């Protein structure tokens, strides 16, 4: 499967999470008693773990998992933070950062993090206080191991510094080579390749600046430099490189321990982070020192990240898009005015210019309107892989059925909805779908099904996650809620099923019997709820014991583009969302029947109510009673239909949903407003409110 589509998303998100981890860990260091910060850190770490596992970066996920274990103890008051824990966590963070950097640079994100993992594990066991010096010694003893591991994976740039150091210790020569290509060289990339070819034959290239990828794409001027390990003497090396045609010169400098340590300092912040991450550095004081420099340098790697991220997408402040959109609406009004003027003046060159402008601004309009809208598919498309891996690791069979992936959502919502959906899916697969044996015993197919649906309804978007698993056990939920002191035993009896299910979203609640790395730490569902609430939506659960569970997320369409039917009522224009229109028709007055005081019509062999929009909206200058033929719009809400009488159809149009402002709230039958091409505001009818 092609991971590139969401690699940039992963990088962006992990950088965000790393940034927040860094910030919050620093905050926690100054306020160690504040457990709410630990919660925030824990959630970030948890999400990061989930994302890395999804993307297949196992080393990242496993290191995060170890850090999470430590944080879990802290969160539950079983462990007091102290400087050693902070240092270890920061080292862990630095290592994570350099792994993400490696992924940004096209690497695999693999790294040997065993020293940090060992420290983290010793913290969890609680024996670190007694064994700190011993641990130092043991990592010392492992040095040769580490260096061998690292030597096997020379391509890894996290360990450059330590690799160079260890190579020196083991008697290899470490060179810094600067190569200059001739000014008139045509195939610079090819020449660089030839140089690398020669170098690779007799040793290992540790790092090149610019990177190998950039060299291959000829993204360098005339110089490039490499760090290189080899047994060859300086002079031979120089001659070999200069024998490549069109290479002007090669300056080869041999490096010793001293120049190494000088070099490692002013080099990139990444290198600092590496040395900080490398707790197996030869001398103890140096390790401590690099730990602290690593922290002060935290801001630098973050800044680098933004510069180094793949350039296929850019992140733009939503406010700027709003401004762009508003400015464009202004332009539109003027355009309509210009068109009118030019048709009055009737000068062909003016008309032509205005026509051209109309076409261009039409295209521009399409782009501007679509800028903020993203199909939910961009979030959904990473789930199949995740579900597959998850099902495999749990030894379950799960089919993920996605529908409505083309549903468009506001970019702000898309950005935020990923994490909650990951949590819910993991939850469904971990807790919802039973194991194969259980399913067969229950008389079900051995493959469970998880449905992921997205759809528009009225002015909301719904996302549903439905599994056909074992359902929610009310009694189990209640007993755990009582045990975890979420509710009292007296309260428990009076709760409805829905209220019981909502307890799943209480902070610190988890029904998992054991902690797995998938879910079941009691974070997750409460994050889901707070996230969705912060987006102005809400989440609900329905469940049948033994049949399955459905999580339903309702999100508002704060700003979105929908197709609508524009209609007229006398002098007023309204929009009806196309998604709830079944069809339009023209009926005769006498077709309207009165049934028990309600007006109904026969439509496609069904009797459906017919409503007067002009009455509902108190139209000042239209009354369909005067007409013999009436246009109707048949709308639906779920499986209920109704006909709405209107004056005239104007046509279909793509409209931008705008809120009416905070002053006007809960206007009956109106879900929002839109601005028409002529600059006028038209109200959007909420069909859901018309059908009772």
């Amino acid at each position: 499967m092609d991971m590139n589509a969401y690699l940039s998303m992963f990088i962006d998100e992990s950088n965000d999470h790393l940034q927040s981890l860094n910030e919050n860990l620093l905050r926690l260091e100054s306020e160690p008693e504040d457990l709410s910060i630990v919660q925030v850190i824990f959630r970030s770490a948890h999400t990061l773990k989930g994302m890395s596992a999804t993307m297949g970066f196992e080393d990242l996920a496993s290191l995060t998992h170890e850090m999470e274990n430590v944080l879990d103890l802290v969160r539950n008051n079983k462990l007091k933070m102290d400087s050693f824990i902070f240092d270890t966590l920061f080292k862990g963070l630095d290592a994570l950062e350099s792994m993400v950097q490696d992924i940004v640079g096209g690497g695999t994100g693999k790294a040997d993090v065993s020293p940090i993992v060992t420290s983290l594990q010793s913290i969890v066991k609680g024996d670190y206080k007694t064994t700190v010096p011993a641990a130092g010694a043991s990592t010392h003893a492992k040095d040769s191991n580490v260096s061998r591991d690292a030597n096997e994976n020379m391509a890894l740039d996290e360990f450059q510094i330590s690799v160079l150091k260890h190579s020196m210790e083991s008697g290899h020569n470490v060179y810094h080579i600067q190569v200059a290509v001739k000014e008139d060289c045509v195939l610079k990339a090819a020449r660089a390749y030839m140089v690398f070819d020669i170098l690779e034959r007799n040793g290992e290239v540790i790092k090149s600046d610019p990177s190998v990828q950039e060299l291959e794409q000829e993204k360098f001027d005339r110089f490039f430099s490499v760090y290189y390990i080899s047994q060859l003497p300086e002079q031979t090396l120089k001659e070999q490189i200069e024998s490549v045609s069109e290479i002007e010169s090669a300056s080869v400098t041999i490096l010793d321990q001293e120049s190494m340590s000088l070099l490692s300092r002013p080099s990139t912040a990444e290198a600092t982070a590496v040395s900080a991450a490398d707790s197996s550095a030869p001398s103890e004081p140096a390790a401590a020192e690099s730990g602290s420099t690593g922290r002060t340098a935290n801001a630098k790697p973050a800044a680098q990240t933004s510069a180094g991220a793949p350039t296929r997408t850019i992140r733009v402040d939503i406010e700027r898009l709003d401004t762009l959109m508003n400015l464009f609406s202004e332009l539109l009004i003027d355009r309509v005015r210009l068109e009118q003027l030019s048709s009055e003046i009737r000068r062909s060159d003016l008309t032509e210019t205005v026509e051209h402008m109309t076409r261009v601004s039409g295209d521009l309009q399409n782009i501007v309107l679509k800028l903020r809208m993203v199909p939910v598919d961009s979030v959904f498309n990473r789930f199949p892989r995740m579900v597959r891996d998850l099902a495999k690791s749990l030894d379950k069979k799960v089919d993920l059925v996605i529908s409505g992936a083309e549903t468009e959502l506001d970019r702000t919502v898309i950005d935020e909805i990923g994490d909650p959906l990951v949590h819910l899916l993991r939850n469904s697969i971990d807790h919802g779908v039973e194991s194969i044996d259980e399913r067969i015993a229950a008389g079900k197919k051995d493959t469970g099904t998880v449905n992921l649906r997205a759809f528009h309804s009225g002015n909301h978007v719904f996302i549903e996650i439905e599994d056909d698993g074992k359902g929610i056990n009310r009694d189990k939920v209640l007993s755990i809620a009582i045990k975890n002191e979420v509710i009292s035993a007296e309260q428990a009896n009076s709760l409805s099923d829905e209220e019981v299910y909502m307890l799943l979203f209480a902070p610190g609640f988890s029904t998992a019997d054991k902690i797995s790395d998938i879910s079941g730490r009691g974070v997750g569902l409460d994050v889901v709820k707070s996230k969705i609430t912060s987006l102005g939506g809400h989440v609900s659960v329905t469940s049948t014991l033994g049949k399955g569970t459905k999580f339903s997320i309702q999100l508002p369409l704060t700003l979105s583009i929908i197709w609508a039917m524009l209609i007229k009522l006398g002098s007023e224009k309204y929009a009806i969302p196309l998604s709830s229109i079944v069809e339009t028709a023209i009926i005769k007055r006498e077709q309207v029947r009165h049934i028990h005081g309600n007006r109904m019509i026969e439509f496609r062999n069904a009797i459906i109510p017919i409503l007067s929009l002009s009455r509902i909206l108190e139209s000042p200058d239209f009354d369909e009673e005067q007409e013999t033929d009436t246009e109707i719009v048949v709308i639906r809400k779920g499986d209920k239909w109704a006909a709405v009488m209107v004056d005239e159809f104007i046509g279909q149009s793509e409209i931008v949903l705008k809120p009416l402002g905070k002053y006007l709230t809960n206007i009956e039958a109106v879900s929002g407003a839109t601005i028409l091409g002529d600059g006028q505001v038209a109200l959007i009818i909420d069909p859901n409110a018309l059908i009772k």
Partner: protein
Amino acid sequence: MGEELKVIVFALANEEYGIEVDKVRTIERMTPITRVPKTPAFIKGVINLRGVVVPVLDLRGRFGLSESEPTDNSRIIIVAVNDLEVGFIVDSANDVIDIDTDSIDSPPEVIGGIKAKYLRGVAKLGENRLLIMLNLAEVLNKNEIIQLEQLED
């Protein structure tokens, strides 16, 4: 001496009112207003203010004065209070002046009752000119509107 206060002066049925200038976003000429159904009569509807939909009130209606047809002088004053953005239709708006906060007296008792809440005070300008200062938060207070409606019923 109290503090200097910059106020926008607008006219409503032969009287002059003032709003602090920092609460005023812009002043617009009359533009087409889209009626919003099922709202109090003084809410005239919504307008398109450079791509943003903004509700518009007729201040005459809000203050219980008789409503009149808009003229060439009519303006919509867009104000922002407590993150509410609302437009007021006024008869005209053509002055910005500095007043001394000391010159603002509390509103006369006669007005009394609920209706006086949206009046902040009266400022004396020169000999014969009185400026009624508005308390915008109260002008936009919907609870009070509901109370008023109940009184009328």
